[in-house]
């Protein structure tokens, strides 16, 4: 691998403050993406997946408290609002779960795509470029004169994708891009994402709660729980040998697996709320293999094999348990 990774998130912690409480949304999150790579980020609602996506583009209301985010080697951790202009759209674009709320309801979609073209690739003949983009996302060119409400959910997501790739991004963040869609439409959008990545040599961060989607589309996977990245590795490695008890449980649950007694395999309890800092592993209360040290300290990443790492005491303390302790107790 030459040069720095396209995106490199190192030990990032971030919290949201409301009037009465502090929510520790991200705690010592690590994630990196190389050029052209497809990386999946899985976790349940509230695990911090979307906060990661927003932090990368400076879209969170909170500041990063510790750690750093680098985009193609450039530190963007503490950019000003003007500084973000050089990151958003190019080199990093994003599409969201609910296209309808990101499209202007009273503007024809062709115009909305044209705005992106004018902003990011000035000088190009706009109409021709809009037609080209519509073809790239496999929408009929006649869609340009439609309003968002006249399109189906799948078509709207394609419009959002056209706006995103108009910027010619090196990295596309897709935050639950198919969650609101039916399975057959979902399959079409996933195929489109794959084609676009190949055509444009674009890296992707695919955020989803659905292990199946991420497995089908990504080279590597990160698993998040309660604001932490707890396991990551190559897709095949994660699915063949999941290490963290949470990842193991998630895989059974995702398939509605049943045990010998015919009961559905489930993870007892509920995800913790993230107000107040807890020492130790956030999964400890639900973990069937918890040990005394689990409540005291979150272990650092332990490399299991090439590119597969886990943060769990079952596999040892890891290299940076002390550093994690530091991140676990800011201010």
């Amino acid at each position, binding site marked *: 691998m030459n040069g720095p990774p396209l995106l490199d998130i190192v030990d990032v912690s971030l919290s949201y403050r409301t009037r009465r409480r502090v929510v520790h949304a991200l705690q010592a999150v690590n994630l990196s993406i190389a050029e052209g790579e497809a990386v999946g980020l899985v976790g349940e609602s509230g695990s911090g997946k979307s906060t990661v996506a927003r932090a990368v583009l400076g879209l969170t209301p909170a500041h990063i408290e510790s750690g750093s985010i680098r985009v193609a080697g450039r530190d963007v951790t503490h950019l000003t609002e003007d500084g973000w202009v050089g990151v958003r759209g190019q080199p990093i674009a994003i599409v969201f779960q609910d296209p309808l709320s990101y499209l202007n309801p009273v503007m024809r979609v062709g115009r909305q795509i044209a705005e992106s073209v004018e902003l990011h690739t000035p000088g190009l003949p706009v109409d021709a470029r809009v037609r080209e983009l519509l073809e790239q996302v496999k929408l009929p060119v006649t869609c340009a004169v439609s309003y968002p409400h006249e399109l189906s959910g799948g078509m709207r997501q394609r419009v959002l994708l056209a706006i995103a790739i108009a910027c010619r991004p090196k990295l596309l963040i897709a935050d639950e891009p198919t969650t609101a869609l039916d399975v057959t439409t979902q399959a079409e959008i996933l195929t489109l994402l794959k084609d676009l990545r190949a055509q444009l040599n674009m890296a992707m961060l695919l955020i989803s709660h659905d292990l199946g989607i991420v*497995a089908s589309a990504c080279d590597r996977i990160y698993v998040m729980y309660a604001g932490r990245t707890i396991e990551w590795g190559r897709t095949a490695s994660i699915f063949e040998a999941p290490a963290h008890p949470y990842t193991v449980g998630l895989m059974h649950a995702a398939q509605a*697996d049943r045990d010998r007694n015919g009961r559905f395999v489930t993870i007892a309890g509920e995800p913790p709320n993230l107000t107040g800092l807890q020492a130790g592993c956030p999964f400890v209360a639900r973990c069937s293999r918890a040990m005394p040290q689990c409540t005291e300290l979150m272990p650092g990443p332990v490399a299991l094999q090439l590119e597969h790492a886990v943060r769990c005491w079952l596999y040892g303390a890891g290299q940076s348990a002390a550093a994690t302790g530091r991140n676990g107790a800011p201010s």
Partner: protein
Amino acid sequence: MTVPLLELRDVSKTFRRSRTESVVALCSVNLHVAAGETVALVGESGSGKSTLGRIALGLLAPDGGSVFVAGRQLQQLGAAELRRVRAEMQPIFQDAAAALNPRRSARGHLLQALAVRGAAMETEAIALLESVGLRPGHEYLNRLPHELSGGQRQRLTLARALAPQPRLIVADEPLSGADVSIRGQILNLLLDIKQQRAIAYLLITHDISVARAFADRVAVMMMGRIVETGPAERVLRQPEHAYTRRLLGAVPVLPGRSAGAASAQ
């Protein structure tokens, strides 16, 4: 042959959108659910699954065809009789928060649904809460919906559905709002209730893995018609209809597992 608990014969429903435009939601649908049986209704959004559920519950009148509950035709019942028959069929919905009154406690929700009053009501409400896993029940009686987690709210709607001792529960996407790690808990609860109370389910879902794991029979809907129906094993392993094959083919499968490996023997 015994009379099915629920039977829909040639049921059709068309919604008028405007003077010129109308949507055929159901087109001569036939479906039956036997006592104690679980039937999953799978299909994509807009296929007519929820309309069928509403017609089965008597919440919506069909344009054509008839609905029978334990042999009695819904459309021919008087108001009082209809109310009694409806009590035997209870709905639960996807969005538990929307199905609960935000200003009413758990006790208030159950009180509406229970026939008994006074001290007996309290005991029965507590028993119901505990039967859906909200233990100890008395601690939950005074809770308002916002003081419950998403999973607990779904349990409360289930407790309310069980209060009139129904024989059929029509569950419309009951798991869609739940996180994956919570989903198994709700499924186990539905399984327990099915075994303890011999309740039949009409389970409306877009989630094939849930249908596969949970249902005795599966009916596949497309554009207002049931295109294929049969034992869950058979339909989901060896689908006959091209649409069923397309639907199953679109479901992402985890690596290292075949589509049929869902149940660990």
